[in-house]
């Protein structure tokens, strides 16, 4: 037995026994334990295996800095790669070490370490280059991975996400943070205090102090009580992982039950009281289990009554460890190695655990635990994320915060104040900066604040294997290799050796690594500099960021007002342009159903729900002038009650949308843009309205969502509508093709617009969305005696392709101009300026070899072309693309495949045969006009 539970009082524990397993072994802890403290008290020395060499590793730290003790947890709640040092022990937990199999103590990959000298930095990249790194990668990753994700596990519930504002956010609940939060709250400020530990107190949980006449632990209790009384929000187990633009701070709260919780806090001021992290000391085999941070050793003893060993060496380069040696003296044999007196450890001995250390004076000390302190690194991550600059402190051997950042103060040990007096003083200074006048400072007794440290950076050519980064197995030799191979920039050093790239992000290792690089390259530490600090400070579960945005809420589709009716009619719903719409109806297979619907639509009449169609109203005396500017086509000549098809271009001349413009009245238009383009077109119209027109004489209203549009199309559409009776004449004289008028249905206005996307006689009925159900039901009812069919979007797509009608974005791309789609007249005729006009007269727009819209006929007897197949031209050196197939269907009307495509010089090449290639298969097509069916348009009036 080495580490053990003492019988001394422990600050954080109760007497209740908690049962758990570690790598299958049944163990016991006490309520209040972390997983780590329970393992230490249970004498488990190997808690994990290192990432690369599978070296046995023990506990190093007591909090977020821990590089070794990563575990997967199941049994109670599922956690992957959790830090054993920050997870509270819960009864029934099954804890497994990561990167070890079957257990950390008996890992089958431990042999890897014997080959370590053959596996330096970048070994894998250098060795497995041929023939392809990706062949080897899965096996190497499997050996080097961390925790195992259960692929079918789901979060029990979505993570809460809470937005919060406050006057002051204090990050860190140690002495500096507690005092600041308390004084700010007393002054009436709204305060949020967060701490990533299980309880408030920071260093006061394990260091002795007398504050205001009570011991430190009691002072913490009183602060907590008063904060509660004052209404401050106190969040423990909560990590401030990132500080973003305009003072947004992200917090992740780990809750005992349920998913983590994300806080987005927007405070007026932030105090960073994030403390400091102890550094290791460099000596051979300094990674052996039993070698631990001195602060951690003290914390485990005082908070959890867990002693790291019975024969303890305290090795230090600074004055902070005095209390550690004193604390262990009553229960263990303690020996001190003080680097300040010129003696140091050159190496540790032991197999699966340290058993002795060898000193520079040649003596050997038997030991079962070595508590080391190589100084303290202030936790300045958030300060740097907030664009704070660092400065090097030659006396304290730290990077510390440089000039102030607006609204961000850094206090306590995070600002390199290592004595309690200075810590409180720094909090007082920050409080004065936010306007707390003369804050009352606590009274300290018997506290010396002088901090002394000597330099103990790793040196080149040290004997044995001296570990820098424990989690990623980076040794001094790896850093020397990087220097030899000229990866001397700190960012290159990081990526070449993976120093600081593990899940602990090098919290204990980065500074030692760059100090060695400084030595190797004859530079100072600040000349080498640090890598960039980026969020998150510690890993945050994806679930926290996702919040409720998962499953059906990930990207919620827009829903038709008639969705339930369509479902009752057996509709198969699919998403089209953000809307959930019927693709086809009934029980048949898709292909058969679509062919049947299209066929019946041509023969009799089809009912189609076109509600997502754009209905953007443009009103006012400037409306006609505005429409002329927006559209490629001249629209001001349109008569009231009439419609016109047209294109909307971007300023680059590229077709953005096509559709019908309805002129209801002299000063009132309706832009019927494509369903998926409504928000974009609306924003575009607003932009130009505000930019060029008089907003008092032009108004735009998007009425798409509150208006349903039901389409009746086919040779029998008029007969059907006559039978429905909407108080409007449907004959060709009163309502010719491309005309609009008002009818009514049960007292509700219906706008009837005769336009056609099928090529057949068609009527669009637009009605208030809440009255659409009754109208649709009536259409269906009357339709029964006219052989009407419910038509989904797939059949409509087939019908429009037969007619050569395009869908922008499908039959056009980011290069397509209106002339490429066969519309050239406005180019010569339209005199007034319009969007994109100048672009249509550029050299590029006038090139004769542009790709143009064509029909493509299958002439090789095969089936339909795959959409995306390329037209190709054989050239001297091979072949090149002539364009591609944009739409392809089987036409039930024509009984053959049809296709549309964008083909080079296509408009002038009708009748020519070209090769069509897809996935290695070569076929043939004849170029044809886009319209394959009823080219004269006789069916519009049939």
């Amino acid at each position, binding site marked *: 037995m080495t580490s053990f539970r003492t019988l001394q009082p422990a600050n954080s524990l109760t007497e209740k026994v908690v049962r758990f397993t570690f790598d299958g072994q049944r163990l016991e802890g006490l309520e209040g334990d972390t997983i780590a403290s329970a393992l230490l008290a249970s004498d488990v020395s190997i808690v994990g295996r290192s990432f690369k060499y599978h070296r046995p590793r023990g506990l190093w730290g007591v909090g977020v800095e821990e590089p070794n003790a990563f575990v997967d947890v199941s049994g109670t709640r599922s956690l992957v790669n959790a830090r054993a040092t920050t997870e509270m022990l819960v009864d029934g937990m099954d804890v497994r070490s990561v990167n070890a199999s079957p257990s950390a103590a008996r890992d089958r990959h431990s042999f890897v370490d014997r080959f370590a000298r053959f596996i330096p930095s970048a070994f894998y990249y250098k060795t497995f280059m041929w023939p392809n790194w990706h062949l080897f990668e899965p096996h190497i990753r499997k050996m080097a991975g961390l925790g195992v994700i259960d692929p079918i596990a789901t979060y029990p519930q979505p993570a809460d996400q809470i937005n919060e504002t406050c006057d002051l956010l204090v990050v860190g609940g140690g002495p500096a943070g507690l005092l600041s939060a308390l004084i700010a709250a007393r002054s009436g400020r709204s305060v949020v205090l967060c701490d990533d530990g299980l309880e408030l107190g920071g260093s006061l949980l394990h260091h002795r102090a007398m504050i205001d006449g009570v011991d430190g632990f009691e002072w913490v209790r009183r602060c907590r009580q008063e904060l509660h009384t004052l209404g401050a929000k106190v969040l423990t187990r909560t990590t401030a992982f990132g500080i973003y633009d305009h003072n947004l701070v992200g917090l992740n709260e780990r809750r005992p039950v349920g998913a983590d919780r994300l806080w987005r806090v927007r405070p007026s001021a932030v105090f960073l009281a994030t403390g400091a992290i102890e550094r290791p000391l460099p000596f051979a085999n300094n990674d052996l289990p039993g070698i631990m941070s001195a602060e951690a050793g003290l914390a485990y003893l005082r908070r959890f009554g867990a002693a790291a060993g019975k024969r303890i060496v305290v090795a230090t380069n600074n004055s902070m460890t005095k209390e550690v040696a004193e604390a262990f003296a009553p229960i263990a044999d303690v020996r001190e190695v003080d680097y300040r007196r010129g003696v140091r450890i050159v190496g540790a001995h032991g197999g699966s655990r340290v058993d002795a250390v060898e000193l520079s004076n040649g003596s050997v000390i038997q030991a079962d635990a070595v508590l080391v302190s190589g100084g303290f690194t202030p936790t300045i991550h958030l300060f740097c994320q907030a664009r704070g600059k660092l400065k090097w402190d030659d006396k304290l051997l730290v990077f510390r915060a440089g000039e102030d950042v607006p609204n961000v103060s850094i206090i306590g040990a995070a600002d390199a104040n290592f004595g309690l007096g200075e810590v409180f003083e720094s909090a007082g200074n920050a409080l004065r900066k936010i306007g707390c006048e003369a804050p009352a400072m606590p009274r300290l007794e018997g506290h010396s604040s002088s901090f002394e440290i000597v330099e103990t950076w790793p040196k080149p050519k040290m004997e044995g294997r001296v570990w820098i980064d424990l989690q990623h197995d980076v040794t001094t030799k790896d850093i020397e290799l990087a220097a030899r191979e000229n990866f001397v920039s700190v960012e290159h050093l990081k990526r070449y050796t993976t120093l600081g790239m593990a899940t602990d992000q090098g919290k204990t290792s980065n500074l030692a690594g760059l100090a060695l690089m400084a030595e190797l390259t004859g530079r100072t530490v600040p000349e080498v500099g640090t890598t960039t600090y980026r969020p998150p400070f510690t890993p945050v579960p994806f679930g926290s960021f996702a919040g409720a945005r998962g499953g059906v809420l990930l990207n919620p589709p827009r829903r038709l007002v008639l969705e339930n009716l369509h479902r009752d009619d057996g509709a198969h719903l699919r998403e089209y342009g953000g809307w959930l719409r019927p693709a086809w109806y009934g029980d048949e297979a898709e292909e058969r159903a679509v062919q049947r619907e299209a066929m019946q639509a041509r023969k009799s009449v089809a009912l189609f729900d076109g509600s997502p169609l754009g209905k953007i109203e443009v009103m006012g005396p400037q409306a006609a002038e505005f429409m002329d500017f927006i559209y490629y086509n001249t629209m001001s000549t349109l008569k009231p009650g009439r419609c016109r098809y047209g294109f909307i271009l971007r300023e680059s001349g590229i077709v953005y949308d096509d559709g019908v413009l309805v002129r209801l009245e002299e000063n009132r238009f309706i832009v019927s843009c494509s369903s998926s383009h409504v928000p974009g077109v609306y924003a575009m119209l*607003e932009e130009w309205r505000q930019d060029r027109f008089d907003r008092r004489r032009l108004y735009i209203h998007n009425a798409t969502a509150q208006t349903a549009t039901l389409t009746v199309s086919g040779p029998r559409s008029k007969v059907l509508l006559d039978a429905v009776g909407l108080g409007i004449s449907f004959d060709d004289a009163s309502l010719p093709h491309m005309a609009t008028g008002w009818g009514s249905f049960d007292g509700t206005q219906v706008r009837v617009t005769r336009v056609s996307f099928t090529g057949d006689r068609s009527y669009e009925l637009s009605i208030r969305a809440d009255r659409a159900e009754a109208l649709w039901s009536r259409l269906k009812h009357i339709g029964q005696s006219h052989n009407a069919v419910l038509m989904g979007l797939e059949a409509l797509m087939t019908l429009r392709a037969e007619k050569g009608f395009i869908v922008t974005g499908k039959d056009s791309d980011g290069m397509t101009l209106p002339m490429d789609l066969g519309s050239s007249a406005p180019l010569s005729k339209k005199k007034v300026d319009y969007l994109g006009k100048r672009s249509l007269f550029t050299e590029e727009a006038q090139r004769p070899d542009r790709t143009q819209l064509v029909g493509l006929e299958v002439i090789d007897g095969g089936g339909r072309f795959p959409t995306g197949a390329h037209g190709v031209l054989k050239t001297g050196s091979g072949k090149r693309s002539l364009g591609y197939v944009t739409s392809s269907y089987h036409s039930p009307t024509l009984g053959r495949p049809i296709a549309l495509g964008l083909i080079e010089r296509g408009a002038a090449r009708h009748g020519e045969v070209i090769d069509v290639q897809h996935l290695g298969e070569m076929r043939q097509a004849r170029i044809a006009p886009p319209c394959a069916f009823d080219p004269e348009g006789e069916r519009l009036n049939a």
Partner: protein
Amino acid sequence: MQLFPCPFCGPRSEAEFHFGGDAGNVRPDEDEVSADRWSSYLYMRHNQKGMSPSIWMHMTCGELFQLDRDTLTHSVAGSKALTEGGHR
């Protein structure tokens, strides 16, 4: 997440806004616009470092406005409506 001050709605999250380009990139309206002038209007951007005026649309109220913002520090100096007298 930045906070942009809409002149009509006050400070709102940047996710509610849509970028509308550099302020002052005026559309050439004269009859004969040279190809250079037109392509400069379409494509040439200053990508200014430091305080830079830009046009944004607040998608929830639909208003365009000018935002003066430092592209380096992301600090916002202010915003103004593009019409005299604000909302009309």
